[in-house]
């Protein structure tokens, strides 16, 4: 499917979008209606393993998941009930693969999914779900509803039923290497530019380095100072590190749009680059789904354990602030509240690292009422921020965040995901809010203590990085 077939994209504004918003094309490809449904069903069937089946058999329709979802809580619309979002997927499972599937089909106890249903469900599977996983936490049966949404997207994608912007971004990322136009050429240019601007030594395409540094296109294009920040910190640590123009894009729009093949392509680029430069650590940037894609799925698309460790920049910072290999000045003399990115904290397991960093920076941390694993989603993850028709409900969902941040009374808001940052920026503009989301990485880079280290402090070897 070529770029020319879709209405042109807008990549220069504060947010990714399409140039003519009224010309949406939320159905891709020329499949017949029947073929579309069949394709969706086939893909659904491929994804029904024992774990997904366990989950889909276990729902007792208690409705509690709705109370955890920011989209339901702030709109009151029952269609945003998380388990309802995968209803066609669940129905397909029961009809095709469940233990009694034969009878379901023979007596038509579960109808075949129709194209109308899939079209209706597109907004539930994409627009109103960031796969933040709060629903997973509330479900009394322990169903990981968020993972089921991710699986359902596979079928939707293959059937050509992805929301326009998300499809276009994913297609672009697969073709060009970046959803936002940060091609390898552009990447190298911006790295060089940031290196000059901030007077930081940059390493690009080294043959060998202990740390492979990856970035998100959001940082490269919108917050390029992150390039300088990470370089500064790693140079401060004295580590051997490199960017690689053959593997740098950590966001994974294959994962977000539901294209498993593209997800694999995008992950393999990073994995192969890390292998090529014999890296011991693949460092992921401030991005949430990048962590999910590489830390908790990378080895599985690779087909075997990875020959290097995968770390999120926030957990990396936390660990090395703690062991002294990153020295910061304790002069962030202000009250700070931290927004935990859903995929890094709740879904990923990184909770304490940001607090360690903030404490070392001298900040007085005022936790959100719902913090760490219980933090409310900013509403922009999972590709939602790219879908313009979802703006209305995203802003509604964001209101919880605003209320909670304001309630802490903290002067500064910090997070460690550039997509969250994008979502905060966009909502800040929409609501004329007075809080800006700041980057944890940039905070560390801005407060590095470059005074020579005390003699006893050892330079850590990257191989010793521990989670």
């Amino acid at each position, binding site marked *: 499917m070529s770029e020319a077939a879709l209405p042109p994209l807008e990549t220069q504004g504060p947010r990714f979008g399409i140039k003519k918003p009224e010309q949406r094309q939320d159905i891709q490809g020329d499949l017949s209606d029947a073929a579309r449904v069949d394709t969706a069903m086939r893909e659904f069937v491929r994804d029904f393993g024992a774990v997904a089946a*366990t989950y889909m058999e276990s729902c007792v*329709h208690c*409705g509690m998941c709705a109370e955890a979802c920011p989209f339901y809580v702030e709109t009151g619309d*029952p269609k945003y009930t998380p388990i309802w979002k995968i209803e066609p997927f669940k129905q397909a499972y029961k009809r095709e693969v469940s233990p009694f599937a034969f009878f379901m089909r023979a007596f038509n106890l579960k109808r075949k999914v129709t194209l109308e249903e899939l079209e209706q469900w597109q907004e539930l599977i994409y627009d109103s779900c960031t796969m933040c996983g709060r629903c997973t936490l509330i479900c009394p049966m322990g169903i990981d509803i968020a993972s089921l949404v991710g699986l359902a997207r596979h079928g939707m994608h293959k059937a050509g039923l992805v929301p326009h912007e998300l499809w276009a971004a994913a297609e672009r990322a697969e073709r060009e290497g970046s959803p936002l136009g940060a091609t390898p050429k552009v990447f190298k240019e911006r790295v060089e530019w940031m290196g000059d601007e901030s007077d930081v030594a940059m390493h690009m395409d080294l043959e060998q380095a202990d740390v492979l540094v990856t970035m998100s296109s959001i940082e490269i294009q919108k917050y390029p100072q992150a390039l300088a920040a990470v370089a500064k910190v790693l140079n401060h640590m004295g580590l051997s590190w490199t960017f690689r123009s053959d593997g740098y894009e950590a966001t994974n729009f294959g994962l977000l749009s539901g294209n498993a093949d593209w997800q694999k392509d995008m992950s393999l680029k990073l994995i192969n680059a890390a292998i090529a430069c014999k890296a011991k650590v693949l460092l992921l940037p401030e991005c949430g789904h990048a962590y999910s894609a590489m830390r908790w799925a990378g080895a599985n698309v690779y087909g075997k354990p990875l020959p290097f460790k995968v770390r999120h920049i926030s957990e990396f910072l936390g660990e090395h602030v703690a062991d002294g290999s990153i020295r910061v000045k304790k002069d962030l003399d202000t009250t700070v509240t931290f927004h935990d990115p859903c995929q890094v904290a709740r879904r990923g397991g990184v909770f304490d690292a940001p607090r360690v960093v903030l404490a070392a920076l001298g900040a007085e941390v005022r936790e959100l009422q719902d913090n760490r694993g219980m933090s409310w989603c900013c509403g922009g993850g999972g590709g939602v921020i790219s879908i313009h028709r979802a703006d209305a409900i995203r802003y509604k969902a964001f209101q919880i965040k605003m209320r909670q941040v304001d309630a802490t009374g903290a002067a500064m808001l910090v997070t460690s995901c550039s997509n969250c940052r994008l979502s905060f920026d966009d909502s800040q503009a929409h609501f004329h809010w007075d809080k800006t989301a700041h980057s944890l990485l940039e905070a560390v880079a801005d407060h590095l203590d470059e005074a020579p280290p005390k003699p006893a402090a050892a330079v850590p070897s990257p191989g010793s990085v521990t989670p």
Partner: protein
Amino acid sequence: MDLLSFARGPALQWALVIFVLGSLWRLAGILLLRRKPDYTEPRSRATWRGALKLIVTRTWSRREFRASTAFGQSLGYVFHIGLVVVVFGFVPHILFIHSLTGLQWPGLPSSIVYVSGALTVAALVAALVRRLSNPVLRLLSNFDDYFSWLVTVTPVITGLLAVAHLGARYETLLAVHILSVCLLLAWLPFGKLMHVFLVFISRGTTGALFARKGAST
């Protein structure tokens, strides 16, 4: 054969056969599906502990969720606990289980069981009203939800009628009660009532997978 002998005999026997066969069919059919190996570096290897932990801790809501879930969850607990008291605390029931398994334990005073039964029916009716009036639940609910409700409340009601000797001759009431239990047993493997087994498997699965990642539970 009179109705009571039929209920206590062939009906109960076949109901138990269907219950056992159907439950194991469903569980095997789920658990023997494809499992993909996980090659990612675990944060923790204590997955069994994680599984057991989540089985226990998911029994109540996390603090942050309590306000919004308190009513529904409490209602659920009233009838679940009520059912446990009635099914496992009433001496004639204990004797039935004894005839099936050989296990036995002391029973509760019958009046406590009767009160519990009445509360169970009240809570089940309230839960049905809630299911019909709450927009989220109305959207989600299907035949399974309503039929499972019916199949659960009927034994409790017929049991109460039987001990009260209300509505027909006692042996008829007893037969109807036992037949309603047969229906419950026969239906259980095929609808949402299967959660009596799946709750451990589903919670355990998530507990294990999330312990591996160190993710929030």
